[in-house]
């Protein structure tokens, strides 16, 4: 009885929350705040899909780069060839998947820091390619005049509804995947790869799939971003941005889906406020990173769960 009630109230609160999120545009009228909300939702999807990759124990450093691959594909197809949006977005996602596959074939066998740095090298190479190739990437200036996704997209509110739908759908898909047999296998591979292989799981295939699926969602966000901003440049997908996503995850925690969401909700506004103090941002970010790794290694989520269940043994680290 209790359980049924609990499930019912969870569903009800989710429905109410969704309605609230959709009706938020009636309250928020300022264009800047609406833009902030869109950025927040984009970042939440990125962070949650990033967490999906980390389920298999790999911390990639090319998540923003994958987003850029999707964005550039969609932008080039719609500006230089004039394809409609319902064709460019799937193409963007497919190209992102192919890129992730090719990169994964090279480096999925590597572990820990090696994987991290190999994806970093990839991010660096791709960024230089965007900057240096005038055709078709437009060099440092990027690509201008990307059309809106449809003729009725004429205000931030419409984009907000679109990204909200994308975010909710992505969260649902990633959550279902994590709770399915596939997600459990990934966690098993992360915990003990030898054991997982001994009972017949192909660790390479699963790690690869996790990487490709996570990258596909970041490619989707890239497609959205290109058509929302109407202008993309290599600076939008700078490799430094990948650090922010790592910081969202380690400060929020990676135990459940809520961790990255909490981290993003706290950090994106803080970064916007701190943007006025450019000189201190790197020192502040560095000190914060050291602090969170040394003191609260499980993130805010871990702190909350330790507060709610004191004396629980075996506190896991956000970063494994």
């Amino acid at each position: 009885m209790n359980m049924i009630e609990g499930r019912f109230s969870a569903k009800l609160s989710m429905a109410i929350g969704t309605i609230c999120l959709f009706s938020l545009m009636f309250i928020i009228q300022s264009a800047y705040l609406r833009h902030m909300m869109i950025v927040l939702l984009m970042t939440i999807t990125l962070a949650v899909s990033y967490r999906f990759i980390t389920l298999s124990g790999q911390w990639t450093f090319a998540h923003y780069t994958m987003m850029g691959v999707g964005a550039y594909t969609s932008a080039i197809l719609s500006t230089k060839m004039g394809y409609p949006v319902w064709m460019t977005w799937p193409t963007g996602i497919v190209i992102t998947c192919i890129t992730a596959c090719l990169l994964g074939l090279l480096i999925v066998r590597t572990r820990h820091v090696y994987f991290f740095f190999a994806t970093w090298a990839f991010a660096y190479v791709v960024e230089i390619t965007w900057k240096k190739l005038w055709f078709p990437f437009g060099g440092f200036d990027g690509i201008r005049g990307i059309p809106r996704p449809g003729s009725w997209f004429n205000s931030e509110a419409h984009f907000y509804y679109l990204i909200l739908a994308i975010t909710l759908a992505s969260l649902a898909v990633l959550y279902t995947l994590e709770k399915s047999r596939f997600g459990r296998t990934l966690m098993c591979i992360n915990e003990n790869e030898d054991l997982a292989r001994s009972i017949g799981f192909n660790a390479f295939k699963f790690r690869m799939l996790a990487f490709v699926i996570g990258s596909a969602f970041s490619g989707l966000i890239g497609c959205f971003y290109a058509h929302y901003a109407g202008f993309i440049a290599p600076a939008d997908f700078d490799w430094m941005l990948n650090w922010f996503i790592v910081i969202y995850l380690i400060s929020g925690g990676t135990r459940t889906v809520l961790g990255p969401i909490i981290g993003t909700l706290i950090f994106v506004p803080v970064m916007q406020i701190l943007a006025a103090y450019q000189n201190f941002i790197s020192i502040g970010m560095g000190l914060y990173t050291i602090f969170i790794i040394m003191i609260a290694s499980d993130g805010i989520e871990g702190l909350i769960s330790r507060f709610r269940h004191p004396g629980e043994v075996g506190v896991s680290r956000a970063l494994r």
Partner: protein
Amino acid sequence: MFFQVLINGLFLTSIFSIVALGFAIVYGIARIMNWAHGEFYMLGAVGVWLFGKQLGLPYIPAALISIVVVTLIAVGIERAMFRPLRGLHLPGFVASYGLSLVLQGFVFMAFRGHPESFPKVINDVLTIGTFNIGWQRVIIIPLAGLCLVFVFWFMNRTKYGIAIRAGIQDSQAARLYGLRMNTLCTAAMALASGMAAFAGVMLAPLFAIQPDMGLFVMWNAWIAVCLGGRGNLRGCLMVTAILGFMTSFIETYIGSYFSLIAAAAFFLFGLAVRPRGLWKGMEA
């Protein structure tokens, strides 16, 4: 032209190898990929600028003070920050990246955002046939060679060096034989940061001194350690030689941006063939 490229490759190799060897030693014994290692290199150059140009000391005393100060800073950081993180790969790496951001931020503020420079100590030019190269650049090669000989002598012939190698091979067994890992890690960190600072001190009169000057060297040192095998100093040296000559050739004949791409491609394909490094390393 070809000779010039060779000398330049040797020059780059010697710089990369000094930084990469220290990095490899710390990674081997503490199992922390210390991204802030490049910042010790940067601080070495900043120290020369501070003591030499701002306080007016001659070059050699300024250089010595700079190396000592950087080593002390590094040892302090090792005691406070790296000791609890020893053996944790990703947390150690991310924390060291945070440290690197902090150090870069302070130098950025001290420089008010502008790169600084230090005047050349040796102004003579070496001329062989039609080809000219500054002595300031050439002198680095024998100095770096001396440094490498010292490091290999230290690691193979002295008590501390042999203990560090034992720690790299198997820290559990080394502990059973009564070696103190804490002391060894501090010693390894002092050696490594001293070497990085030495490289920075040598390069201060040649390159622009700026907060992110460590990135270029660290990039190559990192590839060398990943591909050389964990704790394998000879493998690390081999990879630095490949990278140094490759960078020199490509920068001269194709373009400087392309050298980074080539290094990254070499790294990615190297990892694809041998995920644990091209040469045999210790088990992680």
